[in-house]
């Protein structure tokens, strides 16, 4: 066990509850953890929603156990939620936890070992175990409790189940609302808002359920008011426009609806599947179809067929499924069939870490299919971008008749954040399938000499009959093994990327355009990197960051931006060899993915730092990395 040894923290139990003034905080990170099935998830979600409705910035992160149903009271079994609540906009999960509500000491231990709790954090610990009939359990509880206290944690024992028993019969299942009540008091949240959220959450069930939960809420509030000697407030900035709070996968699914795509073909795989779950609920309401195929190859081929037939389709998967789709993706590239492929990345290689965050599939997205298979690769950096990137992807796919890969990841997939409520625009959707006759003499692949673009004849168009083929083919779509024709068509498919690239501008630099260090990132690390840069800058460091949404093609202007800095490095969550390892040198160091791409393109000595822990990279870690880099 790795309990830190700082000891000089006042412990609450020694002091009698006093009349408290709420301490104002800029932000706090709260965790609620339990065995799975005890409702800590729900409690956390509601806390996030209440804070968001209050006007706080939030970022929620699911804490998911590795097993479906891990044994009760097990170290690896923590299930719950982690909510970062702030005064302003919150863009990532932040650092370690400030306050945790734990339903037993074992799940708490798991979090401790994972180093997810601040050294002196506040712990509200269910105390029922102290007097458990099983002496081993009681002993374990007391031992852990005492060690935590000794290690300087601010531990408060809370008789949650006992208190709940006064309110409801099944006290074990009510704890989570009691905890929510405590947290409402601790963070000075409005009970009316909390009751509203409970009504919303349990509204489908009958009113008695809602009432019971509100009672538990109030009991928790009351208990905290009476027994705790602290409370906080996190001033909220009033949003000026409506916001929505969803997680990354919901945002992706909403993006699919908004993009006008009509068919989504998938095969279940964590962490992508929940996007499909949501689509299977709502997609048919707009005439959409969610097809669960027999495997990923079939899902991709199905989407290719649908796209070919005129309805640009999307297929959603994660790493292993993405590997399987490579051949069918190559067919779409060759046939110039628009296609959106979403890869919600998880830890790899192989089955790897199915529920954990990683950015390991960038190279496979760009280079994965055999032969030259140019496709667009983009990555959302925020929950909001999860939504809009799908709309953009569909549009690019159909404009350029290309495959667009969207790389989200497990970090975005289950994290919630608020962003301005999107205003639907008809331009998000494709026009109806063109069924007009094809002009005389037009060819299915009339590659434009400058841009490589060709029109496309979908079935139903009189006069456009031709056979699309994955074999090399000429402008008539006839199989052709001719040397010149092969080069022509390879050229056309590649030029389209350049044509798209001409329309892309480098993203804005976060910070000044000149300085000592530029950090470049992509995808879900955006919030953490920018937060780290922000604090470093506030401390007077000349650092900036650049976050790429397009990884292929890379927008122009990046070189000019890099030239403004003494040092450039990427920060990513995929493997790179550590220079400090004895065997590693410049001739064999394997760089992280974006670093490889940028070094190759710009011939600039871009360093990389990466972490592959299955967890989102923390802003504090990035700060430390930047400081070290600045010192080098």
């Amino acid at each position, binding site marked *: 066990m790795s309990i830190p040894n700082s000891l000089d923290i006042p412990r609450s139990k020694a002091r009698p509850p006093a009349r408290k003034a709420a301490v104002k905080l800029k932000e706090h990170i709260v965790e609620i953890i339990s065995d799975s099935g005890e409702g800590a998830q729900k409690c956390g979600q509601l806390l996030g929603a209440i804070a968001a409705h209050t*006007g706080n910035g939030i970022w929620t992160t699911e804490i998911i156990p590795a097993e479906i149903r891990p044994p009760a009271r097990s170290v690896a079994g923590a299930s719950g939620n982690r909510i970062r609540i702030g005064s302003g906009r919150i863009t990532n999960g932040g650092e370690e936890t400030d306050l945790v509500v734990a339903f037993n000491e074992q799940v708490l231990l798991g979090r401790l070992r994972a180093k997810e709790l601040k050294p002196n954090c506040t712990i509200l610990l269910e105390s029922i175990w102290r007097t458990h009939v099983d002496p081993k359990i009681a002993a374990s509880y007391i031992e852990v409790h005492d060690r935590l206290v000794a290690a300087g944690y601010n531990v408060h024992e809370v008789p949650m189940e006992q208190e709940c028993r006064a309110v409801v019969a099944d006290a074990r299942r009510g704890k989570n609302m009691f905890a929510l009540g405590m947290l409402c008091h601790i963070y000075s949240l409005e009970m009316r808002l909390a009751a509203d959220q409970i009504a919303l959450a349990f509204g489908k069930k009958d009113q008695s359920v809602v009432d019971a939960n509100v009672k538990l809420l109030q009991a928790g509030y009351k208990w905290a008011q009476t027994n705790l000697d602290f409370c906080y407030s996190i001033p909220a900035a009033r949003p000026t426009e409506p916001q929505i709070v969803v997680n990354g996968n919901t945002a992706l699914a909403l993006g699919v*609806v908004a993009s006008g795509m009509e068919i989504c073909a998938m095969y279940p795989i964590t962490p992508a599947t929940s996007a499909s779950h949501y689509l299977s609920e709502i997609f048919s309401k707009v005439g959409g179809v969610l*097809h669960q195929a027999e495997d990923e190859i079939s899902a991709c081929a199905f989407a290719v067929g649908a796209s070919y037939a005129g309805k640009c389709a999307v297929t959603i998967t994660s790493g292993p499924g993405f590997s399987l789709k490579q051949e069918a993706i190559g067919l779409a590239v060759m046939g110039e069939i628009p296609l959106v492929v979403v890869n919600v990345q998880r830890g790899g290689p192989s089955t790897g870490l199915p529920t954990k965050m990683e950015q390991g599939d960038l190279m496979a997205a760009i280079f994965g299919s055999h032969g030259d298979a140019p496709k667009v690769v983009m990555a959302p950096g925020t929950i909001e971008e999860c939504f809009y990137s799908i709309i953009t992807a569909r549009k690019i796919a159909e404009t350029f008749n290309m495959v667009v890969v969207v790389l989200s990841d497990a970090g975005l997939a289950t994290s919630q954040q608020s962003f301005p409520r999107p205003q639907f625009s008809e331009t998000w*959707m494709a026009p109806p399938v063109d069924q007009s006759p094809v002009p005389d003499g037009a060819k299915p692949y009339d590659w434009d000499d400058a841009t490589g673009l060709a029109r496309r004849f979908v079935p139903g*168009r009189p006069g456009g*009959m031709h056979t699309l083929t994955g074999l090399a083919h000429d402008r008539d779509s006839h199989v052709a093994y001719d040397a010149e024709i092969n080069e022509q068509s390879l050229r056309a498919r590649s030029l389209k990327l350049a044509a798209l690239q001409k329309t892309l501008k480098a993203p804005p630099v976060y910070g000044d355009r000149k300085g000592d260090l530029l950090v470049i990132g992509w995808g879900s690390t955006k919030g953490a990197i920018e937060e780290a840069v922000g604090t470093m800058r506030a401390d007077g460091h000349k650092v900036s960051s650049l976050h790429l949404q397009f990884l292929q093609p890379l927008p122009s202007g990046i070189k000019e931006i890099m030239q403004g800095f003494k040092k450039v490095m990427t920060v990513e969550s995929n493997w790179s060899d550590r220079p400090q390892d004895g065997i590693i040198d410049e001739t064999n160091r394997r760089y992280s993915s974006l670093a490889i791409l940028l070094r190759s393109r710009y011939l600039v000595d871009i360093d990389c730092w990466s972490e592959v822990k299955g967890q989102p990279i923390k802003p504090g870690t990035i700060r430390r990395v930047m400081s070290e880099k600045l010192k080098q």
Partner: protein
Amino acid sequence: MAMNIMSTTGCLLEMCDERFELEDYQGGVPRWCTGCGDNAILAAAQRLCRDEGLRPEKTVFVSGIGCSSRFPHYMKTYGFHGIHGRALPVAEGVKMARPELTVFVNTGDGDCCSIGAAHWIHAVRYNMNLTVFLHDNKIYGLTKKQASPTTPIGTKSNTTPRGSYLEALNPLTVTLGVQNVSFVAQAVDWIPEVLFDIVKAAYRHKGLSFIRIVQRCPEWLPDMFEPWMRDPDKVQLLHHDDGLQFSASLSRLYKNQLRHDPSDLNRAREIASSLEPIPVGILYRNPDVPCYEDLLRSDKLRTPELTRAVLDAEFDKYTIRPQGSEKMQA
């Protein structure tokens, strides 16, 4: 060229407006070997299209990779010549996106029963309204003579120079083992009349109609099909009031006939197991199995208005309005 014989009464049905000729369906010149059974299948398909008045632009032939999968290139309809083994899922996607299109599938014994076997089983299960031609020449044609799952045991091929090891897979019994199966037939390329009747029945069946066509490959297996062609009694024609009926002339040549009710699944499986004589005709048909596209597609149209409405309803669930934060926290 299509002959436009507009009726003076201005018939409303689009299909009546135009009559198509065989050449309206004839695409590139077939590049199959002389005597290749694929030619007969092509002829049957083109005749079907003509007889049924299928509009070339509303018809799609989807295939995988193999000699047989060159098929779409030789039609003058839309075609999709995809990747090895994936003809069925591609066709499913086409049909799901555009149920109004008529979709055919051409696949080989390697394409369908080897690399594509999972898709095959599941296509039968989905029961989409597709007509599937399994061009079963019992060999890998295009890649030059390797054993396929349907290659008879003992056959010498380039990967089995001392004879293939395993009993041939029977595509009929496997297909008939799938719960949702709705149409299974067997044809042979060298009796074009029956081949056509079967193709027609398959096309007219709503649901996935699976036709295994025993197809000659003179290039790699010049002797394999000889015995059947020499001895008509090695073919057993299946007839039934609810199935096929055969002309007198045909019946004079093919005397070996069996009355078989295509609604009898158990019996169909038994008959399907027979390797000698080979049954030709409709083994099984169940018009009542629903089609996946009908089950899955809602009657909603994908309009911007509807999209806006549904999105707004969804956003509402997650929305925090500025007034929600009217009261600042202490």
